[in-house]
């Protein structure tokens, strides 16, 4: 029998015991899942987005189920960075797991101020800058849909910290590779993708949208092919590590993302269906490698054989 593979991966300067993280907004800060999952078995906990001041989020209904997926318009409800530090980071300090804090803002200055405050505290291991939330009117995805604003948010955060900085990208763009280049050029150590796809559902009995906000972000298995394509495109074109996410429900899905070029993966909506998905994916990736004699999980990253792909038709 082959020995257990080396599951360690690196994202910039951040070293992880394995490539499986939580996706921001689906796992709070981990406390709610601690009854079901040994958090110390995860590669990292990526927290719910935090802003400078408390945000109330959107009106209800905030979710709608769709085929093999769901729409959400939570709207980054969070208690603000001070409460986050005293409640969430304080609690996470007692757990041996890297903490990646997801940072939100309505303005470039707010993103930078949140990172500055977290740096004063000093307990975050890395930051994921959310320039891709489709559910807020100001900021959020607006920053991630064009190169210049995306780069200015990342530059402003880069000035505040030497820790690993990850830009979370929106799929709601014409060319995600262009945005990835812009944020890497502005100092991002890595990119994570994809955030949710903007979508809609309608209640035909009420003649109304299912979500109070009208539109929301689509997640779940339904978006996996789109996410995988974008991870492949970005990792083929950009030098920084890619954290892949979007509809991963099991180890086989995760391996697809690694082969497409991701250095790590995140589990989001699948946590709702099975709260133990994260650890099952860790075990499943390990078993995938062991059964094939692959001694390091990092060897899977970008190992897709795309040499025989026929050239895409050009006009």
């Amino acid at each position, binding site marked *: 029998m082959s020995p257990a593979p080396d599951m360690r991966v690196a994202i910039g300067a951040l070293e992880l015991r394995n490539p499986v993280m939580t996706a921001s907004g689906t796992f*709070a800060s981990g406390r709610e899942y601690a009854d079901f999952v040994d958090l110390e078995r995860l590669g990292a906990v990526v927290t719910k987005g935090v802003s400078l001041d408390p945000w109330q989020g959107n009106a209800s209904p905030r979710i709608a189920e769709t085929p093999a*997926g769901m729409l959400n318009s939570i709207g980054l409800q969070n208690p603000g960075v001070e409460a986050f530090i005293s409640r969430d980071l304080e609690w996470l300090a007692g757990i041996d797991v890297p903490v990646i804090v997801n940072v939100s803002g309505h303005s470039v200055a707010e993103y930078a101020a949140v990172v500055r405050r977290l740096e004063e505290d000093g307990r975050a291991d890395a930051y994921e800058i959310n320039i891709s939330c489709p559910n807020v009117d100001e900021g959020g995805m607006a920053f991630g849909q064009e190169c210049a604003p995306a780069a200015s948010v990342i530059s402003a955060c880069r000035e505040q910290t030497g820790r690993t900085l990850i830009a979370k990208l929106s799929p709601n763009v014409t060319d995600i590779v262009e945005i990835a280049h812009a944020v890497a050029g502005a100092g991002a150590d890595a990119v994570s993708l994809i955030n949710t796809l903007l979508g809609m559902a309608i209640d035909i009995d009420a003649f109304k949208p299912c979500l109070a906000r009208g539109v929301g972000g689509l997640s779940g298995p339904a978006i996996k092919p789109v996410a995988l394509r974008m991870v492949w495109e970005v990792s083929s074109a950009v030098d920084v590590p890619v954290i892949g996410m979007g509809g991963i429900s099991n180890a086989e899905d995760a391996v697809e993302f690694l082969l497409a070029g991701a250095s790590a993966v995140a589990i989001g909506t699948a946590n709702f269906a099975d709260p133990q998905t994260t650890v099952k994916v860790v075990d499943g990736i390990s078993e995938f490698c062991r059964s094939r004699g692959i001694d390091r999980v990092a060897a899977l990253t970008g190992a897709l054989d795309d040499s025989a792909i026929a050239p895409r038709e050009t006009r």
Partner: protein
Amino acid sequence: MCSEGAGLLGKPIVEPVTVVRNERLAEGVGLLELESPRIARAARPGQFVHLRVAAGIDPLLRRPFSIHRVSGAHTEILYQVLGKGTRLMSEWEAGESTDAIGPLGTGWHVPDRVEHALLVAGGVGAAPLGMLAEDLADRGVAVTVALGAPTSERLVARDTFESVARRVEIATDDGSEGRTGYVTALTEALLASSAYDVTYACGPEVMARVVAAQCASAGVACQVSLERLMACGVGACLSCVVSTRSGLKRACADGPVFDAEEVLWDESEIPPKH
């Protein structure tokens, strides 16, 4: 961490469960009995289970159901067929396997020195009140139940209430049994004629809201169990928020039972179908 016996400590677990019985009680209303020893042992009145309704990825999300009763190793759920998930459930037969997360939520609060409690159930709003009625009766509390439904056929859980309550009053929208009209006409009269220490209500949100106002006028403490669309069920995703005087609360983790005086009804929505 989710070790054997975790349910004993009151912590929720993911438990494989087997359908023992799935009975159609009325048009679109079913009673599901699950073999679920650990959840059944740990459950308290008013808590809920988050039930997987399909293998695979569609429907993707679990469905939350109040625990209606427990009996030995079995947990009973009352459900209304409203969408894809509950339609699938209605087709389950004995022996079907799935899993449930539970017990979840805070449950009803029974204050000290309660002598007489009023339980108000609208339709399948009877779901979280069955186990409470039994528990109160066990404690020697006198229980009065006001039970309302559209028709006599849909007076679900009536047997449970009649076996433990001192008094069961009935209202139906069509007058096929009991008083004609809404259950809130019964509660108005009951609150005017007897002294209750506490009221427990569950049903359509408009009903809960009227009962809450009646109790406030009568000076009777009132708790309500509220329904919301949920994704995670464990307090992480913030899908199921309820507006309260102390801010947004999560129906799954901070509820589903709320002190009625805390709820800001105008900012709450009628729960949509799922």
